């Protein structure tokens, strides 16, 4: 299907398009034309990815700038899905245009997923793969080989050097699997092919971290030009990703390992002094001159890089007191010993970076300046020493990164030292949390660097929260509703049980037997009437466990077992995936199953329950965060003081975005249907915070229901949904053909014209034209047959 948005020809790989997809593309194009960042909320399951890709690819190919697209997604499977969509889109474009465009698109993921080396790829842990890969591919290893020493090299990586550096893979779209296959055929490393081909790609698809995590972004995404179009898909958690990328947790164990790492380094330096003192001297003189940047080390060799440092600082020379390798080691040792001393506390301490630095200086005479260069100095040292087993130095690197961050930022960070794991614990297990409080710090380089950043997801409400928290001004903020030919999902808020007692997971009454029983009956009733799968979300593991054990005591579980199998999500990933597998099997045959899971767990984020896998979703209780956590408290205070977001506003926003995310799990497309139940008294007042598409579908009469009313509503709804529904019924309403688009455009145009003319006519009294255009507008209900007649009526 080919249509025009303004002057831009868009090729859409499907014969029909959803109206909201069309609106989304129009808005996206406007944003790209203007430049600037936008926040777009589009209902889940309405083909966000494909509309995004087809518009941006069309944009790329049509305009001479060929702006590159960087598409960031959250998980491996989402990346793979996006690549597959893109591949289909490019195939369609080739068919339509009749020739193949010069186009390259690659996905990038970790070495672990892309390795072909026969022994390395068998390693289970990602860090081990990274380290082993480095030891086979680093620049100095090759130099050694050339000098005639006996070292192992990766043949896949070596073969890359035989190829033209800008043509490692032929043009086209490669899915991750495709890239692996191509690599296997041509005996070349897929990971490094992708890395090195990035400057020559039209589309790059990778995970958030490659752009947001400053430690990685520096290496991977440095060469991207300013006019790239950056898209963050599934971005409802983007603030947390930003924060996590700059937060560091240090435990006693990691400090011990860091000490060991420092001693190892010391030994290595001694060795090198006796064998190859010249190299150390070279490094030293380079540092003296402040030339560390000029050094042409292959960037993929780097083992760590700098967390966001101001540019002027990067150009500065390393301070004199850590210039020599042995001085730097003693510096590191002192710092680690200091941290160890701090760990020996019996009460929780939270302090700001400046006060930490003063105390540090009082005790160990470590000043701020050299601390700032810690990470960079360590990188340089590791490179000079040509270390092979880099994974041993991971904890040391962490400490160095911590040092750099703590000395760089005065504001927006807090140090929290917790001596005990939980309130009740008596055995100390101290952890030093160095927490970033300001999401804007990590994303700021991205927002500053690129002209257009698109933040999009199925649940971004309330939209103004994101620009506020991330510190930017959005040129476009839009939430799209879902056009439906029939009411295919039924959101309801249940506030009372059948006995008219209020249900809530608020702390005061959550363990009240009456409330628990009411929740139990709600679930039993829904288990009785719903076909196939039901997904239930609880606010936390703790609450879920207590409520399940109470249900067991009340005999509610026995009743539910009459209708469905019960499966439970656990914090353990493998156990959960087994439960999920069983759940799917049970939904495919038999009477279905119930999956009990947690609103902030793995299931709520990445796993879709489309069609019969989820016919009903129950959200039991408002999924608030655990508010007693020190880190959260610090963050709330920071938000209040710096962004003027009040504690309760943020908590409720956060809870509702998770609730909406949970609800969105069951609806993955327009032919899907499902019941969505929010079971808590407090949801009634939080209704405006739900995404527009859910909010619109909720009738006012369904916001304050008791269990029995909700059940009878759901029964009706499910009965209606069970009636046969032809795809044709959707046409023109929730799916548009080309003619529909044109009609829409024509209508919009005449509407605009009419407004213009009305203004005109108000001055000049020209009624005739207004009448004639108004006549066309009247036509609203149409059939495919009269399309052509209508088109002829168009003023064009």
């Amino acid at each position, binding site marked *: 299907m080919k249509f025009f948005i303004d002057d831009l020809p868009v090729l859409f790989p499907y014969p029909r398009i959803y109206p909201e997809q069309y609106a989304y593309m129009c808005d996206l194009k406007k944003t790209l034309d203007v430049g600037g960042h936008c926040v777009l909320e589009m209902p889940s399951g309405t083909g966000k990815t494909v509309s995004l890709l087809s518009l941006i690819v069309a944009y790329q190919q049509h305009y001479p700038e060929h702006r590159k697209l960087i598409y960031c997604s959250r998980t491996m499977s989402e990346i793979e899905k996006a690549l597959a969509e893109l591949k289909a889109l490019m195939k369609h474009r080739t068919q339509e245009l009749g020739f193949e465009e010069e186009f390259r698109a690659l996905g990038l993921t970790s070495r672990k997923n892309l390795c072909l080396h026969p022994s390395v790829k068998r390693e289970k842990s990602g860090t081990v793969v990274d380290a082993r890969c480095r030891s086979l591919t680093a620049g100095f290893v090759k130099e050694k080989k050339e000098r005639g020493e006996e070292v192992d090299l990766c043949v896949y990586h070596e073969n890359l050097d035989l190829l033209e550096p800008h043509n490692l893979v032929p043009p086209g779209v490669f899915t991750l699997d495709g890239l692996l296959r191509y690599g296997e055929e041509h005996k070349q490393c897929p990971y490094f092919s992708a890395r090195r081909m990035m400057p020559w790609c039209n589309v790059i698809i990778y995970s958030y971290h490659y752009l947001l995590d400053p430690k990685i972004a520096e290496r991977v995404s440095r060469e991207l030009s300013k006019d790239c179009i950056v898209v963050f898909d599934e971005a409802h958690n983007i603030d947390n990703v930003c924060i996590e990328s700059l937060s560091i947790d240090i435990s006693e164990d990691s400090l011990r390992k860091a*000490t060991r790492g420092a001693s190892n380094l010391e030994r290595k330096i001694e060795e090198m002094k006796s064998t190859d003192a010249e190299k150390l001297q070279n490094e030293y003189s380079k540092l*003296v001159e402040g030339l560390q940047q000029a050094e042409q080390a292959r960037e993929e060799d780097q083992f760590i890089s700098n967390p966001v440092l101001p540019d002027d600082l990067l150009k*500065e*020379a*390393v*301070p*004199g*007191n850590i*210039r*020599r390798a*042995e*001085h730097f080691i*003693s510096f590191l*040792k*002192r710092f680690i*010993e*200091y941290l*160890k*001393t*701090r760990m*020996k*506390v*019996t*009460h929780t301490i939270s302090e700001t970076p*400046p*006060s930490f630095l*003063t*105390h540090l200086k009082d*005790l*160990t*005479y470590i000043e701020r300046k050299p601390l700032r260069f810690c990470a960079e100095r360590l990188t340089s040292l590791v490179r000079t020493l040509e270390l092979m087993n880099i994974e041993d130095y991971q904890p040391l690197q962490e400490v160095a990164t911590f040092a750099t961050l703590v000395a760089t930022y005065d504001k927006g960070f807090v140090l929290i030292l917790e001596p005990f794991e939980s309130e009740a614990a008596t055995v*100390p297990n101290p952890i030093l949390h160095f927490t970033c409080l300001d999401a804007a710090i990590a994303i700021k380089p991205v927002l500053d660097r690129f002209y257009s950043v698109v933040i999009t997801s199925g649940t971004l409400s309330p939209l103004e929260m994101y620009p506020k928290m991330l510190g930017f001004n959005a040129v476009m903020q839009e939430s799209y509703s879902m056009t439906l030919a029939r009411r295919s999902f039924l959101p309801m808020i249940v506030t009372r049980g059948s006995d008219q007692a209020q249900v809530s997971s608020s702390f005061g009454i959550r363990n009240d037997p009456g409330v628990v029983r009411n929740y139990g009956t709600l679930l039993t009733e829904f288990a009785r009437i719903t076909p196939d799968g039901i997904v239930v979300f609880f606010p936390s593991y703790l609450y879920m466990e207590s409520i399940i054990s109470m249900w067991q005591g009340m005999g509610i579980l026995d009743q539910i077992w009459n209708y469905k199998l019960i499966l439970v999500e656990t914090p353990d990933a493998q156990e959960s995936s087994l439960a999920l597998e069983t759940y799917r099997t049970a939904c495919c045959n038999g009477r279905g199953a119930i999956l009990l899971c947690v609103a902030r767990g793995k299931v709520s984020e990445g796993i879709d329950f489309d069609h019969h896998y989820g016919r009903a979703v129950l959200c039991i209780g408002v999924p608030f965060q655990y508010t007693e956590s020190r880190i959260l408290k610090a963050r709330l*205070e920071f938000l*209040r*003081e710096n962004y*003027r977001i*009040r*504690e*309760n506003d943020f908590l409720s926003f956060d809870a509702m975005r998770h609730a909406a995310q949970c609800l969105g799990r069951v609806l993955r497309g327009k032919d899907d249907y499902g019941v969505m139940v929010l079971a808590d008294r407090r949801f009634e007042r939080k209704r405006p915070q739900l995404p527009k598409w859910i909010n619109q579908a909720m009738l006012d009469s369904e916001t304050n229901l008791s269990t029995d009313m909700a059940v009878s509503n759901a029964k009706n709804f499910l009965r209606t949904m069970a009636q046969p529904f032809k795809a044709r019924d959707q046409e023109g309403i929730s799916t548009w053909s080309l003619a529909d688009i044109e009609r829409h455009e024509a209508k919009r145009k005449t509407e605009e014209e009419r407004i213009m003319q009305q203004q005109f006519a108000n001055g000049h009294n020209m009624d005739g034209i207004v009448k004639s255009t108004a006549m066309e507008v009247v036509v609203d209900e149409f059939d495919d047959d009269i399309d052509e007649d209508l088109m002829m009526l168009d003023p064009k």
Partner: protein
Amino acid sequence: MASKNGIDRRDEDEVCPVCKSSRYLNPNMRFLINPECYHKMCESCVDRIFSSGPSSCPVAGCRKTLRKARFRAQTFEDIGVEREVDIRRRVMHILNRREEEFDSKRAYDDFLEQREEMIANLVHRTDVAKTEAQLQKYASVNIQSIRANQAIEEQEASSFAARMTQEQEEARLRRQAAREQLENERREMQAGREDMISRLAAGSSADAAAIAREGHKVLLKKSSARRSEEDRIRQKQAALRGSETKRGGSSLTTADTAGPSDGGLIKGLRRIKTPEPEKPYDPFMGYVPEKRDYYALQPSYPSTYLDRVKNDTRTAAGGYDLQEYYSRTLVEAFAGLGCFIGEEVAQREAATSGLGLKPAATTSAAMAAGDES
């Protein structure tokens, strides 16, 4: 015990190397070290051995004489680091040059490295004698600048501490204000609702909807009014804070006077001119009346009229000084003798005419230069 670092929490089976008693038997055991030899021993051993004056270290092979007064608790787990920090403390105390004192960053970096080198020498016991000698020499030569820098450091530390406490206090106040505000809001909402209910109960059933609507509207208005009020207060606070930081920033001074020589240890120091010592205020701008040598003031002049006064104790008791009288009379008598008004006028005239001539001269010179080229 409840210091910032809290109490020590070491392994249960830690044993005192001197008396071999373990923490298991004596849970309150504390270990002490002496910076003389850094051998660890428990508190009771220290009491037992060193109470009666200095004694030698009980650890085998260590012959150092230790005093009880110098025993202290260990800060760092690693004895090596403990010792290094002690040495560092001493060296940093002496070599405390600041970055502002150096010509370039490079010079400062070189200084830092040199200091690090000296510390490393002392720690690894290489060239101890030489390093110590250097340190001593430097300390004796630069005693003044060392003191000055120490003072600055102290001042910085105290101003930082003051700022921190102020900030903490502010944060606490803000937190409290936010809490109170939330509480007020809640109470108001509650009151509004109760008010509405009571009015509904009193009024007729016909205008129930109107009352409810009105109540809702009032609540909304209140909240928006509160918002704007809040904005205003915040702006005011922000303005206040801005002015405070400005004031705080200006209070810090980095005046420093480096000694002319630094004993030759440190290179690249900026030559700082010591400002001229301040002279007493001179109202006559260098004009000293006594210097005019038309006359010399004598201790006394013979005069029949004044002799009486000179010897009269009553005039002296009133503060009347005959010397002053002499000098005043003489100044008056010779006043104006050094001025030649005719000369001065001629000079002034010559100056003004010269100014008028100058531009013409320069233009002609420029023209001449142009001709030459």
